[in-house]
């Protein structure tokens, strides 16, 4: 009889714990689709409307659950449509496995119909990829793909399968390997004891420490350890966009997000501390601004599972390669409790005097207000997925999160169009949770075709559109740095999003005044069987503040208009801190 390789592939997928695959079939994956059909009781295939949607959905599923997200596409255009989604997953170290069809092996390299060099195209935007050239190696390769995607620094892995390979029959008892062993792939998990000791010494002797945590804390599930370290050694915590939720926003030691649109307290702490403890973050330019000036008085400890991140952007004093959770546990074994009262008093002073703020008396609908009301109505417990741009920053600033994997956003690649499909993936992974997508009118239009997918599967996602009829973040830069010359940023001609929702079979609401907001959201939150679009017409001239311009330093920070009179005080405190350190 024999068993087709496609059938074995499906066995491996089920064995790896895959419950759902997002994708679109096509000629080169028909054998695989047929095998999935036979196992449709165990393996759900979600037909998306575009492969980009499939990739973001797999990514949103992965980020919100901690499991591997799987997407599938056929050869040629199917696989090239996955590219943006894979690049986004790569930049944010998200565990995604993409399975693509390829033309039959005799046709490879002959520019056959729907042929693309998929492994060539995706080489720089995947952690690893495979072109399967024999049916016998398919089960092993798929096992390896999952192993690579979910271990070490996580990331997307693509497996390209020619159509004749998936059709090939193997013996009925063809073995599926149980263990994965790769001599060329080794991950360092425990930190070097000497480095851990040195880090502990620095923590014991510092007076103004700051914890700077990134996505690695979420990936290694180290939230509890971060909290223990912060509390035991009395250290304020700054998180990156990728780590929002990994340390509770309502914790007294939480200073909020750092970087370009981070809080004043977070950025002042980063830049005036004498010890910076970086855990699972990578000194990205959105955090550091000018890296030469960043935290320049601080000794730096850098804990990262990826050795190539250490010393890449900023020179560090104590590098520790390892898994964040394990390294923090090693540290906690030797660290004694201590206090930094005057430092904590200082950062709390910044927190009190430079809060996130906006014009609350405006007659126009303010986006920050929309997030605040949504946070209030949902008790801060929803899974929040954002698109990219102003919507992303307002959601990050004003929605308080309390658990890891609660806040999902395209950080590194900054992929507009990510938010809505990623929220679909998050809802599939968390069917009993409330999922909110905060998107802009620009980004939503890039992937709004996925409304069809959300409607078909009765997903009750609340999509809040910050509709300002502009590509808002670009407009903000044009306002600040290009004399308000709006070169191609007006979205005049936007569709009526309420009608769009209705056309897809979703529900649409329009909110144009502040007083309409809460009643509308309350109604929308009652809808449990279909997606809701809430089209919020916000003040088009609202900017995201604070803002440290690209490549700038803390001295260049632009405060919200309500706080600008306090900028001078900040500069004086900075100068005093630099003088004291010198």
């Amino acid at each position, binding site marked *: 009889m024999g068993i087709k390789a496609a059938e074995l592939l499906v066995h491996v997928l089920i064995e790896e714990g895959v419950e759902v695959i997002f994708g679109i079939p096509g000629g080169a994956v028909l054998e695989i689709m047929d095998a999935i059909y036979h196992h449709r009781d165990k393996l759900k295939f979600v037909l998306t409307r575009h492969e980009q949607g499939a990739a973001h959905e797999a990514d949103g599923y992965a980020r919100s659950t901690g499991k591997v997200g799987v997407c599938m596409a056929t050869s040629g255009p199917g696989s090239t449509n996955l590219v943006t989604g894979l690049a986004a997953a790569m930049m944010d170290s998200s565990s995604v496995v993409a399975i693509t069809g390829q033309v039959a092996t005799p046709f490879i390299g002959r520019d056959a119909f729907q042929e693309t060099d998929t*492994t*060539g195209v995706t*080489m*720089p935007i995947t*952690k*690893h990829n495979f*072109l399967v*050239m024999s049916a016998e190696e398919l089960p092993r390769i798929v096992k390896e793909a999952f192993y*690579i995607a979910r271990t070490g620094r996580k990331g997307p892995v693509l497996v390209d399968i020619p159509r004749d390979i998936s059709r090939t029959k193997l013996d009925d008892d063809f073995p599926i390997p149980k263990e994965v062993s*790769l*001599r*060329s*792939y080794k991950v360092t998990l425990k930190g070097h004891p000497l480095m851990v000791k040195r880090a502990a010494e620095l923590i014991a002797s510092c007076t103004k420490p700051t914890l700077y945590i990134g996505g690695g804390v979420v990936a290694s599930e180290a939230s509890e350890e971060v909290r223990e370290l912060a509390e035991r050694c009395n250290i304020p915590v700054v998180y990156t966009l990728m780590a929002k939720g990994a340390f509770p926003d309502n914790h007294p030691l939480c200073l909020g997000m750092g970087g370009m649109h981070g809080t004043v307290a977070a950025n002042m702490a980063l830049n005036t501390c004498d010890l910076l403890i970086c855990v699972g973050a990578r000194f990205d330019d959105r955090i550091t601004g000018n890296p030469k000036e960043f935290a320049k008085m601080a000794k730096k400890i850098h804990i990262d599972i*990826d*050795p*190539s991140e*250490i*010393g*890449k952007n900023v020179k560090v004093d104590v590098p520790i390669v390892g898994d964040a959770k394990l390294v923090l546990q090693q540290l906690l074994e030797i660290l004694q409790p201590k206090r930094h009262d005057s430092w904590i008093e200082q950062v709390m002073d910044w927190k009190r005097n430079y809060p996130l703020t906006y014009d609350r008396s405006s007659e126009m609908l303010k986006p920050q207000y929309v997030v605040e009301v949504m946070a209030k109505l949902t008790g801060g417990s929803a899974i929040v997925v954002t698109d990219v741009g102003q919507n992303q920053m307002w959601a990050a600033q004003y929605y308080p999160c309390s658990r890891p994997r609660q806040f999902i956003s395209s950080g590194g690649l900054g992929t507009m169009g990510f938010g809505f499909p990623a929220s679909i993936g998050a809802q599939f992974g968390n069917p009993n949770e409330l999922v909110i997508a905060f998107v802009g009118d620009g980004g939503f239009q890039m992937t709004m075709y996925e409304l069809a997918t959300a409607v078909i599967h009765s997903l009750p996602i609340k999509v809040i559109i910050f509709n300002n009829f502009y590509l808002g973040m670009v407009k903000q830069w044009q306002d600040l740095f290009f004399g308000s010359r709006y070169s191609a940023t007006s979205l005049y001609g936007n569709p009526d999003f309420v009608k769009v929702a209705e056309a897809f079979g979703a529900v649409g609401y329009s909110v144009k005044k502040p007083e309409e907001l809460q009643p509308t959201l309350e109604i929308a939150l009652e809808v449990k069987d279909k997606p809701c679009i809430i089209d919020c017409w916000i003040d088009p001239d609202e900017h995201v503040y604070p803002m440290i311009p690209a490549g700038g330093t803390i001295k260049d920070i632009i405060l919200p208009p309500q706080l600008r009179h306090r900028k001078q005080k900040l500069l004086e405190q900075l100068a005093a801190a630099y003088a004291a350190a010198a």
Partner: protein
Amino acid sequence: MASERKSQQLHTLSVIVENRPGVLARIAGLFRRRGFNIESLSVSTTDDPTISRMTIVVGGDDATIEQITKHLNKLVDVIKVQDHTGEDVVERELALIKVSCEPEQRNEILNLVTIFRASIVDVGADTMMIEITGTEDKINAMLELLRPYGILEVARAGKIILARGSKTT
């Protein structure tokens, strides 16, 4: 002086990789994408047919070399990376040099070839081809001495190295 400074910045990396299709593309892609510069590259299988050895000569300061090494190690198909710069290794390059040569000049050239322990591998009516192995400096010296005769073509293979004694490369 300039060449001396340059040579101080050159590092010889021995990279042991899985012998699989696409590995060279991955490594070349990494160098291109991160802006690292390859001076020379030599690839061949080893005694174990599943493993290839790449000897890569790269330029850069210590921080750059550290980044190159780390990024190479991160590639799933890379088994081991070692920087042998400044270590006790045997290094060799191979060159084929075709020079213009009148019949009466053959003896002169033969003398040079003997001194350099090179060999003549082809003689034409008015050409000679010399095969030489050795360090980069030795090959450069040979080239300079042959230049007056008129060098017609040169093919040089990338550097290869092995550590001396029982130490592995």
